[in-house]
């Protein structure tokens, strides 16, 4: 039955007219050819992933399709008709909606108020509240999430996944035929991703065309039927998922084979003495945390969203400090109650949210790199012993060390790509001579190539005797990088696993199915 249906839809697809088509789109920004005669067809009932490195032109293409940009030349054809959207709302009303990477919801308003913002059912300007909630309920029911989300719930009280669903509900309520999702899963846990998967299947069944932009290739292969690869603003290819392997797609994206994604792990001889020891430490989010971090190792921290991963990093760095327990740094008992202390104890923290916690977007690359040095200088030191002269030498050295690609270090950092920004953040901590590095999602939203070079840099750090604690929600990254893995669950360290543990093993501990004692000896061990 289902098999038959599948065949029928597939047959249909080949006969169907594309729902949305871009033809020879060219878009030029000052100094950059962002898109060069790109043509893609998107069919109904199909998930079509658009992949490429940062700067490949994915976002520009999506902004053109959704009406935020107008192309210099070329056409957007919606259901056989040429369209030109002057404003995103034009695109919405014609059935093309987009869900951006950053949440576009009002946290202080209810689900209903968000979904129907600007389109509330009303008589002479007075809102029909029961009708508003009824309409919202209908949309939620259509998506099969009415039990999970109430129309009158305040958005800030919802989980990240539920907020994502509200965004999709908003898009659907415009009666969209084309739904563009820009990195929809960046902030979701695996279980939530699964939920999103199911939702996408429902939408497909309604005959919508779904355009999916993601950096996670594994996900793309799970969810999409077709993949279009862009590189440097040019169309490379459109392929059927079933015809290719991930490695092929990576090759198309970067134009070369990335034969090893990850640098080789450390060997026992590389690991030195314990530099950071935490004993029975707790705060409002974390319970009974005990861990040891050695020189020269990468200690991975895995766990689901909300398991306390980020909170652990914040506690170690004194952002939200531990309330009880002991911290020992290089054998001495210390209290790390503020980042001020942490930095002086030789710690560096590469935060998860680069834009709001890692960089000063409107300051030059130079000043971003020198931030920690200046903070470490004595209060009057900076004035007397001006950093500008020093920086003339230091900044290019650091820049070369981390391979920042820019024409000038005086450029505002906001104009760099995500990968290059992250390299500057790294340089900032290299400058402070930190011996303990905490990375929280070091490669989030970064393209494949920059990702690999950041991984290499992390490994190089450990070779110089730096101790690294690396938090990541991407299991391949955890497995590929970690010499040991701590798995968090519900604010506790639920288990410690050896290097190269399987994804299954980590997930079992992370979901609370197994504790540390039997994780290593489990029947699951070695499978996969």
């Amino acid at each position: 039955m289902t098999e038959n249906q599948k065949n029928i839809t597939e047959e249909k697809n080949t006969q169907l007219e594309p729902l949305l088509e871009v033809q020879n789109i060219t878009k030029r920004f000052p100094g950059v050819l962002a898109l060069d005669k790109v043509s893609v067809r998107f069919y109904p009932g199909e998930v079509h992933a658009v992949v490429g490195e940062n700067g490949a032109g994915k976002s520009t293409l999506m902004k053109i399709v959704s009406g935020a940009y107008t192309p210099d030349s070329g056409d957007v054809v919606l259901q056989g008709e040429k369209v030109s959207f002057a404003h995103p709302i034009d695109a919405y009303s014609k059935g093309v909606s987009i869900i951006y990477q950053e949440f576009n919801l009002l946290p202080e308003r209810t689900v209903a108020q968000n979904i129907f913002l600007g389109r509330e059912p009303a008589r002479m300007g007075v809102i029909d509240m029961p009708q508003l909630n009824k309409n919202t309920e209908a949309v939620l029911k259509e998506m099969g999430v009415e039990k999970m989300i109430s129309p009158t719930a305040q958005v800030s009280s919802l989980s990240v996944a539920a907020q994502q669903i509200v965004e999709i509900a908003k898009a659907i309520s415009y009666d969209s035929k084309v739904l563009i999702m820009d990195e929809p899963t960046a902030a979701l846990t695996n279980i939530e991703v699964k939920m999103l998967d199911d939702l996408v299947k429902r939408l497909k069944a309604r005959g919508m065309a779904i355009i999916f932009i993601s950096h996670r290739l594994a996900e793309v292969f799970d969810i999409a039927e077709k993949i279009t690869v862009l590189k440097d603003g040019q169309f490379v290819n459109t392929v059927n998922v079933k015809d290719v392997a991930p490695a092929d797609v990576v090759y198309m994206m970067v134009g070369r084979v990335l034969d090893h994604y990850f640098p080789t792990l450390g060997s026992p001889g590389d690991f030195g003495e314990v530099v950071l020891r935490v004993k029975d430490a707790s705060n409002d989010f974390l319970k009974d945390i005990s861990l040891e971090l050695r020189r020269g190792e990468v200690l991975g921290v895995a766990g689901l969203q909300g398991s306390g991963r980020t909170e652990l990093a914040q506690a170690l760095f004194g952002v939200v400090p531990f309330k009880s327990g002991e911290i020992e740094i290089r054998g001495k008992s210390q209290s790390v109650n503020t980042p001020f202390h942490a930095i002086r104890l030789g710690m560096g923290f590469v935060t998860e949210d680069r834009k709001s916690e890692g960089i000063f977007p409107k300051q030059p690359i130079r000043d971003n790199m020198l931030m920690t040095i200046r903070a470490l200088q004595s209060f009057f030191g900076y004035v007397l012993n001006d950093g500008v002269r020093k920086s003339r030498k230091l900044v290019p050295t650091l820049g070369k060390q981390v391979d920042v690609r820019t024409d000038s270090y005086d450029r505002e950092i906001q104009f760099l790509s995500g990968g290059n920004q992250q390299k500057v953040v790294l340089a900032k901590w290299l400058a402070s001579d930190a011996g303990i590095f905490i990375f929280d999602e070091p490669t989030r939203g970064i393209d494949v190539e920059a990702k690999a070079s950041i991984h290499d840099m992390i490994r190089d750090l450990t070779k110089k005797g730096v101790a690294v604690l690396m938090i990541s929600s991407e299991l391949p990254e955890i497995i590929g990088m970690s010499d040991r893995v701590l798995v968090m669950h519900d604010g506790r360290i639920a288990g410690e696993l050896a290097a190269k543990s399987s994804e299954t093993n980590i997930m079992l501990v992370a979901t609370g199915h197994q504790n540390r004692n039997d994780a290593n000896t489990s029947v699951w061990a070695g499978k996969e």
Partner: protein
Amino acid sequence: MTTSAISQNGFLRFIRRIPPVYFFLILVFVGGAILDVTFADGQMVTNPTILTNILVRSVALGIVAVGQTFVIIGASIDLSVALVVSVTAVMTSFIMQGDPAKVPLAIGVVLAIGVVTGMVNGFIITKLKVNAFIATLGTTLILRGILNASFANFKGSVPRSFEYFGYGKIGPVPVSILALLIVLLAGWFILARTKYGFQLYGTGGNVEVARLSGLRTDRVLIIAHIISSLTAVLTGLFLVSRLRAGAPWIGTDGVYDLESVATTVIGGTALAGGKGGVWGTIGGVLIFSVIDTLFNQMGVNPFMKNILRGVIVILAVASYTIRSRREAA
């Protein structure tokens, strides 16, 4: 059983929806009453006239604070209200000159002044993209210059019939309190039940989201500024009907600019916009009135009351941030 559970639930929800400012209000009132009974004549609780006066004191600030709440929800601010109050008071008595026949003309003129001021503020903020604080500070200085150049002291007077607004009563209830109540109800209704209100919360909450949802955010903000100026005009009319003549310092002496902002944030409206409402604001206004009355009763140096006001502003806002941090945890 179940119904009682539901009603209890409903009751809890109702309690939770009361802006926390009312707990401060009760605290200030009870504390004030105890002080009054112990150290003064205790009339603050025993004499209904004094209780009514607390409300009447609230009218001038209350009306303009409702308008201020609108602009602050829109993530804007209006510092020009004090000068609009002054201009209204002066122009009203200047045009009326004690002649009842000129009442409609005067009211028409000041309403027009209010609309124009609000529109100018709104245009400067949305079209010239000047920060609201600076924009309305600018219009304040301009209005002050015009006013001080033209009028030095009380000018003209209002006819007796116009004093009805300030002193009249319907039964036992002062007209002015009814006016405040009407403004409050209208403010609540617009914010909580109309498309415009929803759009204002959207614009203040996140301009980009609002724009992508198809709202004309510029227009929404300009209307909020017009509403704010119009409430300032109403306050000006109320004050001139009580004082019988307008002087250029009426608005500035009443510190309606900063006090309307202060009472709005005490009431729980976020200065960042997108959150809050008029019921909280009026709670803040009542707190200020209770403090005024208390200091009058006790015969304490009136400048001292500013210390207490300052402490309350800081405590109230601190309690909100602590609360929201706990909710986030």
